[in-house]
Structure formats: C-alpha cells, structure tokens
C-alpha cells in the first residue's frame, strides 16, 4: 500500500510541525536580515484540512489576498503557496519601503518585493526540509497574484483535489514592532514525495 494523506497523523504531523517550526525560524531570521530589524515569531500551527473548505478559514471567498506560488522539484516534487492577507502584505511593504503602498494593487516594485519575500520565506521552509532529510530540493521562480481568496485557493484545491481531499496548512505569525504579518503556507508535496520524505526522515516504518 502506498502512503495516503489520511495516514497523516501522530508522528507524521509532529515531524511536519517540527519542520514548520524550524522553517519559520529560518524565515524570521532571513526577513530580519532583509529589513535590518528584529522580527519575532510565534510557534506555527499546523492543520490538515479538507481541500474544499480551505477558503472558509481565510475569511471568505471574496477577501482580497496576496498569493505567492512556488514549485519545488528534484528528490521530492510539489508546490507551495504562501497567502498573506492584504493587511499583512501592506505591513510588510511598509516595513520594507518605509511608507504605505499607495495603489491598492501595488506597483511593480512592490510586487517584485513580495515575490522576493515569498522566495525567502519559501526557501527557508524548503531548506529546513532539505537539511533534515538530506534530500536535494530546488525551487522555481515565484509567481505573485493579488485576487479573491477563492480564486487563488482554487489553485491548490484543484492540484490537491486530484489526489486527496486533504491539504496541509502551516500558519505563521511574524511580528516587527506593531506590524503583524500573518502568513499561511500551503505545503503540497505530491503523493509519492510524502513517502520519500518520511522515509528519508526515518519515520516511515510500514515496510
């Protein structure tokens, strides 16, 4: 029997949580270096959710959010989606550029900055997975979209809908002064990659 998403419980969740924790730590450090100020983080939370219900937890289909999408490949394959609510991305850009964005949909410079932040945050995660597991993982250039939450989340929902009804969500909270940045990561390894990942982490014991 192959690995199923429904098998994701107990020790597997703990392992993913620990990876998420270290990934978030790396992310906070990289962000802190980039903006040259101290960034605090909370312990991230991890949830396994029904794909068709993921929109609800973000606060509604029509809420405008920023999505940064990245695919990873080599020893394990899959995609990752970072979702920032509008307030968090406004805060991030305020920290970076020293002023609030003027245009609701941001200018090219700001979009490119978000792309870079998505890149840094995602690679922090991927690096922590890679360091833990000794797997080689490369990541693609990130793509940014600012649109309705429902539309953006249909991407992971569809991608995952082909193999499972469940999806992994890691929620991160970073803080710089009074500016809170809440990032939600959807981690979507393809189903074979779970096997590879857990095996190289030494936790897959069913064979």
């Amino acid at each position, binding site marked *: 029997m192959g690995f199923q998403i429904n098998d994701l419980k107990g020790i597997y969740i703990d392992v993913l949580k620990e990876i998420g924790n270290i990934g978030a730590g790396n992310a906070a450090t990289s962000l802190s270096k980039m903006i040259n100020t101290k960034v605090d983080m909370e312990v991230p939370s991890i949830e396994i959710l029904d794909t*068709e219900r993921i*929109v609800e937890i973000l606060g*509604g*289909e*029509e809420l*405008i959010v920023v*999505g940064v*999408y*990245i*695919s990873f*490949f080599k020893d394990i394959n899959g995609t990752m989606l970072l979702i920032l609510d509008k307030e968090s991305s406004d805060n991030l850009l305020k920290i970076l550029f020293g002023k609030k964005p003027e245009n*609701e*949909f941001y200018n090219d410079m700001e979009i490119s900055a978000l792309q870079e932040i998505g890149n840094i945050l995602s690679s922090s995660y991927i690096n922590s997975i890679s360091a833990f597991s000794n797997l080689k993982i490369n990541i*693609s*250039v990130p*793509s*940014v*979209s*600012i*649109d*309705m*939450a*429902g*539309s*953006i*989340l*249909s*991407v992971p*929902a*569809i*991608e995952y*809908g*082909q*193999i*499972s*009804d469940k999806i992994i969500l890691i929620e991160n909270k970073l803080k710089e002064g009074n500016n809170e940045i809440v990032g939600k990561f959807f981690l979507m390894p393809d189903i074979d990659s779970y096997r590879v990942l857990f095996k190289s982490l030494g936790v897959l014991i069913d064979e």
Partner: protein
Amino acid sequence: MNNNVIKVGMAEYKTGKENDVLITLGLGSCVGIVLYDKFRKIGGMAHIMLPSSKEIKNNSNKAKFADTALEELLKELIKMGASKSSLIAKIAGGAQMFNISIKSNTLNIGKRNVIAVKEKLSEYRIAIKGEDVLGNHGRTIEFNCNNGELSIKTIGKGKKII
C-alpha cells in the same frame, strides 16, 4: 421583489426557480456553468474543479468534475420540469492564476476545464449563449433565474453581464 440567494460552493451544484439567484464566489481556475430553461425559468449552476472524473481515482464527488457534474445537473433540471431542448448554457472562469512554466499540465487546468465543459455541452447539444473565460483573474458570478442574466464581478475590473 425579493430574490432568494442560493450559494454554490466549490465542487457543488445547485438549482433554482423563478426569483432565485444562484451565486458562486471567487472562481479561479474552476469553471462555473449555468444551464437555463427560460420558458420555465428553471436554472442550475455547477462549480467544477477538474475536467474529467475518468482521469483520477478519487472521484466520488460528482460535482467536482466537468463530465459528471453536467450529467447530474442536467438530470436534476429535467426532474424539475425543464425541457432539454430549450436549455441554454453560460460559462465563466477557467483562469490561470499563477504564471509558472513548469508542470504546465496542472497550471493550465483552467483552460483544460473550459475545453472539457465545452465538449460536454456540445455532446448534449446545449448551446453556449455567453462566456467569460480564461485570463488571469478571479470572478464572482451571479445568475438571475428570472431573466437569465449572468453577472460577472472581478477585482479592479468591475462588473459585466452576459
């Protein structure tokens, strides 16, 4: 006159009669399909996620796929008294939300969804009377079962009616 709003979620289909408004929020790569019998004012809306139930194993939810969702929706409408020969269709969605060139198969799912829906509709000989598909933005759609109008809202681009 108060319209009764019926919300259609992702991978669901719903039907409505006179005075009903069928609505689906934040369509991305998914496709929203409306079937409508204007003489009897009976309409249905499906929010499909994937082109075909035959390509994958995990296919128990019929409303998730273009082929099975249309089949079920059509059955339901006919049960309600709609006549197949007077049905028309309107479709929206199928956007590509992110531009990444690798694994184009998954990312261009929006386009594949649109193609699958059109193929299925032509198989049933149901004419498409209006469409707003592809592109790279999300859509909220609202179908008025009274007059057969489908209104499409996008962020930053306003509203249009097909």
